[in-house]
């Protein structure tokens, strides 16, 4: 599978999905007006990856900001990961948040309560 590598912009995050390593990362700001357009290729890619995933998949989410329209798309990404996990593969989500950013921590906890995949909340201390 070809990896997905997308450079970040002021409104969209940096994305690195590498199937050969089983490490996926979404990093930066995710505040586009049309989030579906941005996330659909990622969700489709995960759909293919789900057919033959590695024994362990690690997902690193390091978002500084995301808008509510992205929040639904991010949930779609997590739902794909949940399906991979449900098929008896190891999946781990590392949810990073900056020191003092309680809103970002709470956002991670929201997903943790909806999605049946192990989450680790990691505080970034400057």
């Amino acid at each position, binding site marked *: 599978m070809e990896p997905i590598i997308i450079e970040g912009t*002021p*409104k969209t995050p940096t994305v690195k999905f590498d199937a050969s390593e089983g490490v996926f990362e979404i990093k930066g700001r995710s*505040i586009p*007006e*049309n*989030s*579906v357009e941005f996330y659909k290729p990622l969700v489709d890619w995960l759909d293919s990856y789900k057919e033959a995933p590695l024994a362990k998949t690690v997902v690193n989410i390091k978002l500084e*900001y995301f*808008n*509510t*329209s992205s*929040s*639904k*798309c991010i*949930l779609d990404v997590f739902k794909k990961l949940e399906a991979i996990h449900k098929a008896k593969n190891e999946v781990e989500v590392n949810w990073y948040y*900056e020191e*003092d*950013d*309680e*809103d970002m921590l*709470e956002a991670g906890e*929201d997903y943790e*309560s*909806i999605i049946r995949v192990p989450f680790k909340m990691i505080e970034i201390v400057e």
Partner: protein
Amino acid sequence: MGFDIENYISENDKNNVILFYKGNVDSDVINHVLDTVEDKMVEVNEQSKLRKKVYNVLVESLQNLYHHVDRVPEDFEDQTAEKYGMLVVQKVDNGYKIITGNFVHAENIEKLEEKIKRINRSSQDEIKELYKFILNHQRISAKGGGGLGLVDIARKTGNKLDYSFKPYNDKYSFFYLNILVDEREQS
């Protein structure tokens, strides 16, 4: 004019306005507003927690305008704007005020007001649950909104949504949303 946001802000508050905009709310305008306000907050060394809240709320209020505004009335002065909105960002004692204004067609008022009232009578815990419920159950609408903007604003600020509808004519009202983002601790 009664619906003009410039008159909506009282005279003595005008000094503290850091940004005022009225016109078409497109993607470039949103970028520009976000950059300007972010730069100003960095300039005055605003603490990062408040800065992030203001930025988040600003994104949601602008994108609410972008996704949801109704067309302007036929006799309105500015007919060029497809998505006409107004925005004021104002420094206040403990934080920032973000005021938006846009036309709402009479038939859409009730639904919008009901949504705001529901949010305003909810506790912070209820708002959090409401957010999660909508996140998990509602698809993104044809307009591109997630239906979460106002809930998110109420959740992040911890404040009630202060709003009003000023009638413009039989068919339209002008909707003001007055959002306070302050430093008080959330419960």
